[in-house]
């Protein structure tokens, strides 16, 4: 029978990776994701898999590059400043078409910031904080269970599309313990990797690279990447809708904020305010379609995020002026349901005038 265990989100993410067949973990300590590294330090050697505490985040992401180039499932995790240091590596991984899983348990920023919850790395994750034209799949868990599930899922997506899958959590999601159900059924095995570096015995040598000097080569390569990205947009967009069909105000929120919004929807409905929620589970690809549909009948859209209007841009891009959009952006603080309700009320009020 599936096991139910009380786990910190960080541990759940680690265990999700373990269960999904992660072959190698590379990390460098940083609060608030240390429990993930600690979990892997215990679990991976136990299972005869690879754990390395790297000397830096740069080293860690490049070890991921190596292990992945060798055809193995590899991951790293960190928190905001450490993720910034991985940007070059992520860009290389994207360009080299390597699968990789990166968990970012966001903390307050910019700079050293604080170690509280924040969603200030939304743009970095969804727009590519690294150089060049590329995308990463960005998954946004909202519970310890999803820390487990989506991290496991990240491996499948990364392998399927040969790209980086980022799990974008925050300090609260990482630190909070909740019951997590660990399924009994094994996860699907990784697909064959006919590009992996394994030694060229019996076949021509293989090459994992990103330098494309030939005339037009880089452009062709970029277009090919974007063909994949369009496929991901078509097939992998995920979201959760709550009471969105008849909502006057559609809330849009992910991660911890989405939990608060669920509370706000429940409270609001009790008070006669018809709220609904679209919770993007994939931040990239963003659920433009679902949001457009949900917003169609609403009087306004309220974006709730722990940042200064980063996701709000995606909402604006999805709606292109068709609905008024308000923002409740708290850069380093998890808003309370009450504040959400007040903003929603204000939005409705403004629409009346």
């Amino acid at each position: 029978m599936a096991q139910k265990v009380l786990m910190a989100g960080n541990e759940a993410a680690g265990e999700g990776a373990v269960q999904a067949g992660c072959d190698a973990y590379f990390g460098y300590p940083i609060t608030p994701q240390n429990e993930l590294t600690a979990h892997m330090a215990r679990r991976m050697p136990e299972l005869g898999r690879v754990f390395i505490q790297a000397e830096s985040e740069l080293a860690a992401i490049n070890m991921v590059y190596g292990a992945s180039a060798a055809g193995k499932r590899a991951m790293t995790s960190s928190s905001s400043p450490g993720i910034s240091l991985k940007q070059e590596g992520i860009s290389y991984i994207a360009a080299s078409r390597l699968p990789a899983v990166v968990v970012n348990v966001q903390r307050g920023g910019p700079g050293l910031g604080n170690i509280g919850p924040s969603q200030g790395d939304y743009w970095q994750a969804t727009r590519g904080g690294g150089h060049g034209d590329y995308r990463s799949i960005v998954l946004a868990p909202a519970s310890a269970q999803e820390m487990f599930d989506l991290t496991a899922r990240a491996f499948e997506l990364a392998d399927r599309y040969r790209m980086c899958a980022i799990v974008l959590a925050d300090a609260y999601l990482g630190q909070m313990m909740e019951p997590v159900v660990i399924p009994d059924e094994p996860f699907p095995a990784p697909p064959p990797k006919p590009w992996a570096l394994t030694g060229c015995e019996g076949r021509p040598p293989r090459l994992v690279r990103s330098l494309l000097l030939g005339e037009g080569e880089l452009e062709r390569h970029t277009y090919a990447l974007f063909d994949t990205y369009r496929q991901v947009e078509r097939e992998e967009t995920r979201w959760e809708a709550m009471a969105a069909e008849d909502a006057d105000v559609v809330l849009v929120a992910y991660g911890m904020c989405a939990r608060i919004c669920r509370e706000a929807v429940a409270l609001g409905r009790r008070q006669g305010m018809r709220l609904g929620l679209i919770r993007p589970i994939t931040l990239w690809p963003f659920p433009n379609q679902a949001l457009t549909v949900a917003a169609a009948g609403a009087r306004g859209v309220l974006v709730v995020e722990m940042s200064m209007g980063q996701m709000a841009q995606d909402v604006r891009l999805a709606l292109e002026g068709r609905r008024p959009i308000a923002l409740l952006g708290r850069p380093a603080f998890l808003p309370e349901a009450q504040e959400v309700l007040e903003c929603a009320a204000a939005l409705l009020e403004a629409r009346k005038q």
Partner: protein
Amino acid sequence: MKTLYERPDTLRRCLTHYCAGCGHGIVHRLIAEVVDELGIRGRTVGAAPVGCAVLAHQYLKVDMCEPAHGRTPEVVAAIKRVRPECVVFSYQGDGDLAAIGTAETIHVANRGEPVTVFFVNNAVYGMTGGQMAPTTMLTQRTTTTPTGRDAGYHGHPIRVCELLATLDGPAYIERVTLTNPDRVRQARRAVRKGFLTQIERNGYSLVEFLSPCPTYWRMAPIEAMRFIEDEMTKVYPLGVFRDWEAPGAAKGKTRK
């Protein structure tokens, strides 16, 4: 008809992009020869540096990757951890290895990862047009030391072998050069021993080549060889800095 010398199998037959007299070509050839000799082509995985040798994979017929500038040691360490059956090597220039990659160089060595590092020290950044490298000689003029490298202003030439020899991790470290046929033969032995350190001892090895960059030294190839022999070897003495086989020598511990 008996063939006395033939291009090694592992070296693809094509015009390289290297300047005439560049040491990279010799090092490539030695690696290819040894890979052939040891019969490990089918299980070798290499990493090309970001530097003039970034296209090494066009010349060496083994599985290769081309990671970010300076990070190759960690890349091949990771490959080796997940595929211990492979023979891995990291090919690096001095900028790659001793500037941007300093931390990776030291920590891979310190962990005694069973990888082989080929370090081409040409005292300059070739790829980017001849800037100062950490290994640039004092008074040497480069694009970024237009009046010559000054110890006080730009720092001292870094001796990588000596630095790594203070660590417990490495099993084999040697500095060689390419300035005449005897030196090249010695370099070839070092390449062989580098691979064997990995294969037989599961240990970390690094071979440093003092190597000419005629272009950015603004010297003819043979002059460049003489400069190494006369000047560079004074600052970078040739020799073995760590040897797991030497009786009584400090032996790097290896991974379980």
